[in-house]
């Protein structure tokens, strides 16, 4: 078992780190204030290859694999977690297409997404509840050579920054009656709804998609009718959960760096507080959370690249690392004392960012159901 990163992975990390420090850092205050995604950065990231990191080269991507994707998202998250939040959902869209689209659909929709000409979206969550996928109400009725979509999708990341949407809608009864569609914003009846005002990960747009008798050509059905549930689950397990876990990893890096920096600078009783054992205990806990999360998330990236099924490992990585990020951010705030709860100091933002990662991409409760299933299966 080799725990070292390859030379390629080290160079990828170094390149993205430099980019994040130089290009993203100056935009953070503006993102926090406005909640908007910096579109000019999208172009630069597209040129670098960030948007097409898991898309095969023949469709305009770079095809670097899932472990590389984790590392890249982690480095971006270390500086500004909202950015990899938006990117990871974009990757979910590219993954849905790479895995389930036919040749024509791939040729049409992957290149603009891989190059960053537009962001992608995967819309599963109905107002009726994201955890209850089978209970969704958004429907798609076949009329001639078109599907007519009706309903709304909420809490959709990148909604207002995207032209290409992968939408799950009901074509039949129950869980086996869901289908996936590629919807362009320009289609008749497709509309943008409200924009949410999140407490954290501001800069990743979260909003509503509205379908009022939206006309979707039959050729935009992904796979077959009834494939929707499988597509949604594969998508979340293989791309969504590792993506969110990577965002949490980024947060954990930032949390540890800021906590350690403050502990070294803050003088109490004539010495830096990093000399005090209780502060050291907090730092040790944060360090443990970071290292454990990193091992869990990197393992999922590796398993995906080996094509090994990793439903439980993916759920674990996501649930653990997001919880760890929130737990550690809180400890970091306490290390900062009263400075920690002032808006001027970045550490409070990290807690708010971490809180948003917990329900995003699937609640912790659903993740635990997957983990419990795996635990029970070990009895056999």
């Amino acid at each position, binding site marked *: 078992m080799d725990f070292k990163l390859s*030379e390629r992975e080290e160079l990828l990390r170094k390149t993205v780190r430099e*980019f994040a420090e130089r290009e993203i850092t100056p935009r953070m205050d503006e993102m926090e204030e406005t909640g908007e995604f910096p579109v000019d950065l999208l172009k630069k990231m597209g040129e670098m290859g960030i948007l097409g990191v898991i898309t095969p080269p023949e469709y305009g991507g770079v095809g670097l694999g899932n472990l590389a994707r984790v590392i890249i998202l982690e480095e971006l998250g270390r500086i500004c977690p909202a950015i990899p939040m938006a990117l990871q959902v974009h990757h979910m869209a590219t993954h849905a297409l790479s895995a389930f689209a036919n040749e024509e659909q791939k040729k049409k929709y992957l290149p603009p997404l891989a190059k960053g000409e537009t962001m992608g979206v995967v819309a599963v969550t109905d107002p009726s509840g994201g955890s209850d996928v089978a209970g969704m109400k958004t429907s798609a009725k076949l009329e001639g050579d078109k599907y007519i979509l009706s309903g709304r999708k909420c809490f959709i990341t990148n909604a207002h920054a995207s032209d290409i949407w992968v939408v799950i809608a009901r074509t039949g009864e129950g869980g086996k009656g869901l289908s996936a569609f590629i919807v362009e914003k320009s289609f008749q009846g497709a509309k943008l709804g409200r924009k949410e005002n999140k407490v954290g990960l501001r800069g990743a747009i979260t909003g509503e998609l509205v379908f009022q008798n939206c006309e979707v050509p039959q050729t935009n059905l992904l796979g077959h009718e009834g494939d929707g549930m499988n597509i949604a689950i594969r998508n979340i397990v293989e791309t969504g959960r590792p993506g969110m876990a990577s965002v949490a990893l980024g947060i954990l890096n930032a949390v540890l760096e800021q906590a350690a920096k403050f502990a070294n600078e803050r003088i109490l009783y004539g010495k830096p507080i990093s000399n005090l054992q209780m502060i050291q205990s907090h730092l040790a806990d944060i360090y443990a959370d970071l290292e454990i999360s990193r091992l869990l998330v990197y393992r999922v990236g590796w398993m995906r690249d080996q094509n090994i099924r990793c439903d439980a490992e993916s759920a674990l990585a996501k649930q653990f690392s997001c919880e760890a990020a929130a737990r550690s951010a809180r400890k970091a705030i306490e290390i900062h004392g009263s400075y920690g709860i002032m808006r001027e100091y970045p550490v409070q933002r990290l807690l708010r960012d971490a809180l948003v990662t917990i329900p995003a991409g699937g609640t912790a409760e659903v993740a635990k159901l997957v983990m419990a299933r795996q635990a029970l299966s070990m009895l056999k």
Partner: protein
Amino acid sequence: MRIIVCLKPVPDPKHWKEMSLHPTLKVLVREGIPNVINPLDRNALEEALRIKERQGGEVIILSMAPLFCLSILREALAMGGDRAILLSDKAFAGSDTLATSYILSEAVRKIGDFDLILCGNQTIDGWTGHVGPQLSQFLGIEGISLVRMIEEFHFEEDAKGRAKAARAIVRRNIEYGYVRIEAELPLLLSVVKEINTPRYATFAGILEAEKKEIQILSASDLKIDPSHVGLTGSPTKMADLFMPEVKRRREIIQEKPEVASRLIIEKIHQRGLI
């Protein structure tokens, strides 16, 4: 155009605080400190890549460094360099700027014809700015430092009727402005930060770089006179090395404004800022 870019790996400034001084050997302990491409060398590489994009040609990366710096050269290739040459030999260790320039000049001779050599004006560790000018002397070509812009190249037809770059017009920083200079090629230019903003490597570039050639040359591959390299070949020697303690001097005065002002100005002047 064939452009040679001289590159030096230097300790990453973000980690300088971790370096320490060996108490008896009087050397800097650099183990475990990651290296980066010297920032101004990145500007030099960027300029070379831009020239290649406009005029066509080849960009060759040249570096004298220990073997573990191969990954630094790989990074330069990922940015767009065509091939790289690493000069690595125990005999080179301890070379001062004169010996280093000599070694680099022998490598350039081995490469053969070239139009332009670009380097960063100075490195962030040594800060001498010597290697560019000294390399130009060893090669018998003109060298211009503090270059902030290459305005244009003038081409002439060579014996075979092909366009060859004959002259360059560049801008050089001086104390209160700049001069515009016309110089004959082949030419060496040491560039400053203002010249451009270096590009980031792209992921596609990183993949391509894995297929590009990095040639490793030792002293025996070059026509090196061993008495001109290493510690023995370096006219300058280090007599002492120390890390000054940042202890604030705490010189407090209470004087009339005129006297205080004059004393303040003296302090500013001593720092070379006025």
